[in-house]
């Protein structure tokens, strides 16, 4: 996927920009903020689209000023901490959020790209099946996870968090890539079915609990559950591809990570035992 640099603001003037003028008092459910719905609409048409402010129906124009024309890329400015579901169901195009963003950004998206210049609250990209989410700051809990009561979390795509992330990153993940530039909370990769989670910082407790398949990588040592067994120390070639890919995406990857040797642990033995944790050998 070829992407424009996030700081390439020359493109902003040509695309749609939503600027928050009234901060919502309660969470604003803004599924409508999605290129799939906005392409080709005029400023007035976009401003009239409905959103839910708490349990009250409102319009995008009640909270955002709209400028430009809806095309495949648009920008959102302001503190969006109370704006939920931006880019939910996204299948194409690009959203750049110049600030923090609220819950469920990119939920169930299947394509396109979302860039968050600030922090993101919980549930980044839950049950997504394609596309890419990049969070330049920190992310909350349950990045790329399954919703409560569901069985399968992230099915494909990429989530890149430059900062830290909370608990249960990749809960129930089935495919795709989650990369965390900082530390992770507890239960990273819990109930993971497959896919890859790379944590450049430290892992929390009970990583990989209940995982069937999949890969959890950390550049720091961690005490794994007793149901993970040591296999060997080696240089996994596939990991070089992943780390080089993340480097291209702007994540800071030390050369020692790329050429390093990793201790491989198999787990979780309470499940299929076909998952793996790869810990960089210092």
């Amino acid at each position: 996927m070829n992407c424009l640099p996030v700081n390439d603001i020359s493109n902003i003037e040509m695309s749609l920009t939503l600027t928050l003028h009234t901060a919502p008092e309660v969470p604003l459910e803004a599924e409508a903020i999605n290129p799939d719905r906005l392409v080709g609409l005029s400023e007035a048409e976009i401003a009239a689209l409905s959103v839910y402010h708490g349990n009250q129906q409102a319009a995008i124009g009640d909270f955002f000023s709209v400028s430009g024309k809806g095309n495949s890329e648009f920008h959102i400015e302001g503190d969006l901490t109370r704006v939920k579901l931006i880019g939910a169901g996204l299948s194409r195009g690009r959203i750049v959020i110049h600030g923090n963003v609220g819950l469920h950004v990119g939920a169930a998206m299947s394509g396109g790209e979302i860039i968050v210049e600030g922090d993101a609250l919980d549930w980044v990209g839950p049950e997504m099946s394609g596309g890419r989410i990049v969070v330049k700051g920190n992310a909350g809990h349950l990045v790329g996870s399954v919703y409560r009561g569901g069985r399968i979390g992230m099915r494909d795509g990429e989530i890149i968090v430059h900062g830290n992330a909370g608990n249960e990153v990749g809960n129930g993940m089935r495919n795709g890539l989650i990369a965390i530039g900082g530390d992770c909370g507890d239960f990273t990769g819990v109930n993971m079915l497959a896919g890859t989670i790379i944590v450049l910082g430290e892992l929390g407790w009970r990583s990989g609990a209940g995982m069937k398949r999949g890969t959890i990588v950390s550049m720091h040592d961690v005490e794994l559950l007793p149901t993970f067994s040591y296999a060997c120390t080696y240089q996994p070639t596939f990991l070089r591809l992943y780390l080089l890919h993340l480097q291209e995406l702007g994540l800071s990857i030390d050369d020692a990570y790329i050429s390093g040797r990793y201790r491989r642990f198999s787990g979780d033995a309470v499940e299929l035992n076909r998952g793996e944790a790869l810990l960089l050998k210092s």
Partner: protein
Amino acid sequence: MWASRVIITAERPQWAMAAARSMTGFATSVIGCKCEAGIERHLTADETPDRRPGVSVLLFATTGEGIGKRLVERIGQSVMTCPTTACFAGLAGENEVVVGGQLRYFGDGYQISKRLNGRRFWRIPVMDGEFLVDDRFAIQPAVGGGNILILGKDTQATLRAAKAATKAMREVPGIILPFPDGVVRSGSKPGSRYKSLLASTNDPYCPTLRGIAPESKVIPDVDCVLEIVLDGLDLNAVHDAMRRGLRAAAKRGIKQISAGNYGGSLGQYQIRLYDLLKDSKPANDEII
């Protein structure tokens, strides 16, 4: 003709080259080897997908299906077996053959699939760790069987010219010279008096048959003929390599440079040597 490019990487360049040599062994002619393969060039670490040193290999066969079968056989037996190697598709395109997706069964259920950036890889457990291979390799229509014939006064002069020609031709990207060190002495013509043979010796160019063969093309003062066969990913690459080869082979002791024509009936391309030399500059030591 169809072709595919294979990128072999390894921890050290010599292991990548060892795998590449093994993979391209016994692959001189589609007639007898089912494919033609050769080493295109060395790759630096910066040029490979996993940033390890590597080698680029080109493999040609008459059908896309044939490419798939040969890749599975040769990567399975020659690359996967070689310590520390990994194997990647070197072309992009819609026409693909499944390679890693077949080799994965060697993993006996312990193989692991990874998908990154729209590409699927297989991690096959082996005794030094894992063999990583692309699930699919792109293939493309290509040009096979380009050739030049160098007619020299004796073996030494003809070998010298052939060596200079192969060196010049190898500098063209997208080209391989599938015969031993790029040179073939047993050039063939299509067909044979024996029904079971698809090809037989190129008697018009055998010096020992001058006076016997009905249409000998061995001119006076020529006692040795060597052929350089080349395959290319496209016609331009073949043109470029042949042009360089013609220029480089024009050395003292060479009486004539020609090409196999076979009545103009073999293959879909006809490359005229005089046309190739138009607008190209002679080499410094070229004998006109």
